[in-house]
């Protein structure tokens, strides 16, 4: 395993990808009404907030609500991911009849997204749930597919991918 | 005639130390010399590198028979004693039935003779049933050979009763021994009253509960002129009171148990009932005072308070567990390892000084000289060993020293001229 991270997307690349995804969301959903952005754990929060900001620029009449979803209690793994403080679930609006766009930084096995779908059930019955991720790195173990992707990045299992506002790196 | 020859050791008795060998026959010492020639009829006990001393006398042992034979019997306790180098033990009277009648005393003595491993000297009670209300029949019991009387397990609470007991006992030449504990101060107590019990949330046994009775009895001795012995002193102040009383010429003797001069109350931090004992383990300052008391002779004897308890009784919460620890097989090693005293002084505290208090100085603690009864201990003061509870001869396993590395071990024990322990193995 290399110790030096390799930059795959620069900060500007990420900013452009976020803008493109925001437009794709609006196009797919015929507007920004009835949308709710829900960021997964900590990794997906920055994307939800960045998307909300771009969406507001595109259509200042609409403010898309942003929620946070912590799925640690719904995971199916044996050793559960420890809770990271500060990411208590907060869904600001009821989800009935709304379109939820789940956001996460890196899509890998799909298990976290499965847990998120289960957790979302506690907060209402969305009309639809769509998934937006900055990086899809492959190796899916469940039938989960993203609706919106910043970059498709083939990786080997033991590589680590990090995606933030500052860029995407792999090592 | 076949003899028992103890060869190549260092003889140590109250007259001093010299290299030598001993020949024993017919229960007595028949020859003492630098070397002794052996024949093939003789049994030879190799004492190279060892101290050869008069056998030890334990003033305070619970043999549990009659009444609690699942914890220990007179036979298993005698075996543990012999392995510990003891040729005589005073059997505490808190049996069931109590040793407050001639019948029970004779039973205990007979069981000891049957085991044939050491002298079992039954103690009598100060009060009937140890209930603290009526005097036990000292005259009758002393005529049956009982010399030491105690309510051990309880102290005699009533000062008037204790005064009468001393006055009555005076002309009989017996010794009353006190377990000093003012019961109203120790109700429900589980361990020493101090910072550890405060933290652990347990009722405490304050030092003053012992010291008040030590003080009281010293004054009663002063009043009546009758001698007394104090069992298991455990506090610094108790030692000081006894030191002052002896300096004033009062006829007082005292003993201390090895667990009180080697373990502190912090041993109970894990709530392990193996460390629960009465009186309780106390503080480093108390340990220092007990060691000093042994060194300057304020405390006359090391007495183990050997208290076996069946394993399941110690596997309950601390407040429900019975107090008491094994002691016979670890006493010598703990004294050698932990006491900064000349070996002769240690042996004195194990041998001739307790022999005098127990009234058996004519048979035990004798000088190693031709004609004397052959009650002899041979021990290696440098032998290293580790305490393994499963290897102890006692029927019980409640030693607080499991896994401890100790220095000093008995190699042979000769009781009444017979080798009852050879190379660390009991012969019966």
């Amino acid at each position: 395993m290399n110790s030096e991270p390799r930059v795959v997307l620069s900060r500007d690349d990420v900013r452009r990808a976020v803008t493109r995804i925001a437009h794709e969301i609006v196009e797919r959903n015929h507007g920004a009404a009835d949308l709710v952005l829900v960021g997964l754990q900590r990794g997906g929060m920055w994307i939800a907030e960045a998307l909300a900001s771009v969406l507001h620029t595109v259509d200042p009449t609409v403010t898309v609500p942003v929620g946070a979803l912590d799925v640690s209690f719904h995971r199916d793994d044996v050793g559960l991911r420890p809770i990271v403080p500060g990411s208590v679930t907060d869904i600001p609006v009821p989800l009935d009849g709304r379109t939820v766009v789940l956001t996460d930084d890196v899509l890998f096995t799909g298990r976290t997204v499965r847990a998120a779908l289960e957790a979302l059930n506690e907060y209402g019955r969305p009309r639809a749930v769509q998934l937006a991720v900055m990086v899809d790195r492959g190796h899916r173990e469940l039938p989960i597919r993203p609706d919106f992707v910043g970059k498709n990045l083939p990786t080997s299992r033991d590589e680590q991918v990090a995606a933030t506002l500052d860029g995407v790196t792999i090592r | 005639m076949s003899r028992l020859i103890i060869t190549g050791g260092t003889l140590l008795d109250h007259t001093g130390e010299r290299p030598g060998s001993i020949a024993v026959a017919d229960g007595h010492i028949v020859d003492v010399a630098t070397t002794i020639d052996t024949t093939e009829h003789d049994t030879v006990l190799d004492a190279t590198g060892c101290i050869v001393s008069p056998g030890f006398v334990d003033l305070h042992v619970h043999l549990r028979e009659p009444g609690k034979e699942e914890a220990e019997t007179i036979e298993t306790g005698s075996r543990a004693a012999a392995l510990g180098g003891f040729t005589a033990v005073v059997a505490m009277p808190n049996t069931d039935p109590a040793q407050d009648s001639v019948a029970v005393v004779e039973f205990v003595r007979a069981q000891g003779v049957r085991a044939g491993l050491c002298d079992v000297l039954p103690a009598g009670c100060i009060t009937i049933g140890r209930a603290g209300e009526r005097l036990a029949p000292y005259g009758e019991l002393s005529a049956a050979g009982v010399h030491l009387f105690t309510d051990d397990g309880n102290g005699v609470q009533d000062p008037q009763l204790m005064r009468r007991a001393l006055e009555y006992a005076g002309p009989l030449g017996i010794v009353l021994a006190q377990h000093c504990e003012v019961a109203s101060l120790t109700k429900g107590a589980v361990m020493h009253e101090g910072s550890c019990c405060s933290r652990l949330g347990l009722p405490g046994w304050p030092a003053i509960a012992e010291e008040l009775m030590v003080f009281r009895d010293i004054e009663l001795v002063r009043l009546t002129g009758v001698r007394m012995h104090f069992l298991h002193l455990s506090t610094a102040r108790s030692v000081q009171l006894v030191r002052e009383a002896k300096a004033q010429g009062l006829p007082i003797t005292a003993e201390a148990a090895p667990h009180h001069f080697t373990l502190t109350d912090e041993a109970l931090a894990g709530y392990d009932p193996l460390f629960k004992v009465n009186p309780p383990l106390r503080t480093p300052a108390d340990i220092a005072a007990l060691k000093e008391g042994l060194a300057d002779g304020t405390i006359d004897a090391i007495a183990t308070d050997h208290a076996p308890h069946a394993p399941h009784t110690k596997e309950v919460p601390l407040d429900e567990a019975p107090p008491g620890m094994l002691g016979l097989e670890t006493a010598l090693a703990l004294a050698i390892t932990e006491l900064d005293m000349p070996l002769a002084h240690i042996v004195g505290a194990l041998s001739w000084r307790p022999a005098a208090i127990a009234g058996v100085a004519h048979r035990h603690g004798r000088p190693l000289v031709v004609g004397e009864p052959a009650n002899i201990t041979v021990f290696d003061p440098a032998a290293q060993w580790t305490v393994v509870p499963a290897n102890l001869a006692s029927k019980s396993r409640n030693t607080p020293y499991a896994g401890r590395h100790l220095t000093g071990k008995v190699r042979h024990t000769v009781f009444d001229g017979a080798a009852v322990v050879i190379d660390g193995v009991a012969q019966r």
Partner: protein
Amino acid sequence: MSTHAKHLLAIDDLTPEQIHHLLELTDHMVEVSGRSIPKVPALRGKNVVSLFFEDSTRTRTSFDTAAKRLSADTMNFTVSSSSVSKGESLRDTIETISAMGVDAFVIRHKSSGAPQMVTRWTNASIINAGDGWHQHPTQALLDCYTIRTGLNRRDGFDGLHIAIVGDIKHSRVARSDIQAFAALGARVTLVAPPTLLPPSIADWPVEVSHSLDPLLPHLDVLYLLRVQRERMADALLPSLDEYSAMYGLTAARAAKLPPHALVMHPGPMNRGVEMVVDPGELPGSAILHQVTNGVAVRMAVLFWLLGSGSDLKGDV
């Protein structure tokens, strides 16, 4: 992130970081408890067995609710002393029940140290729900959580002055609270007559006062302990009336507290003794919050011991 532990026996087994972590975890559990269906699958398949050798409906149901909200299976045994004295020792009871497959025991016992002793006889995690006079760690944690939210002190208790009043000597709640409050940085004063204080507390992180009134205007939290009738029989108190006159929370004393101050009690209360005024009339009373927070705190403890495992690589 706090390292996982196997048991929760006493507050002084926890570092301040671990205490903070458990309080933060409790925030998550409060959120779960607020959902329309307050249940998550986090401890599905785990067996949590309550063994209460001293009954306490309140604590026992609090733990049971907490375990069920995490989808654990539960079994409850209230062992009255008569059934234990029928010959089954504590060890036998534990080993028999363990053989059925237990992930955690929640134990309350009249003997200090009993839960610690139990760790020898089973591989399960042990949670101390109160042992003799020794510790009641989940009570202390819920007390800390109540203060944290009631006084909005998420970063710790530096500068807070907390008085604990009553029978400290016999109180496992007091021993746990003292350690927890001090670990979080609070100034703790014990208020009691000398007979109700433990024998040696010189090395405890507390101040001691025998007089309550001068302290009242300076307190952020007034924590009252139950005083029992039995203490009079042991010559610890002349009478409960005298205790009440000197240390009881009367309306007059309550009026001396600063407006923001919290009044707390672990329950059950002796009305007219330590609590003279009706707590319903006290704006600062956090007593009902203590009860509500109890379930969330116990959920956090169960999850921390049984669920939060080792770190995963970042897979999604």
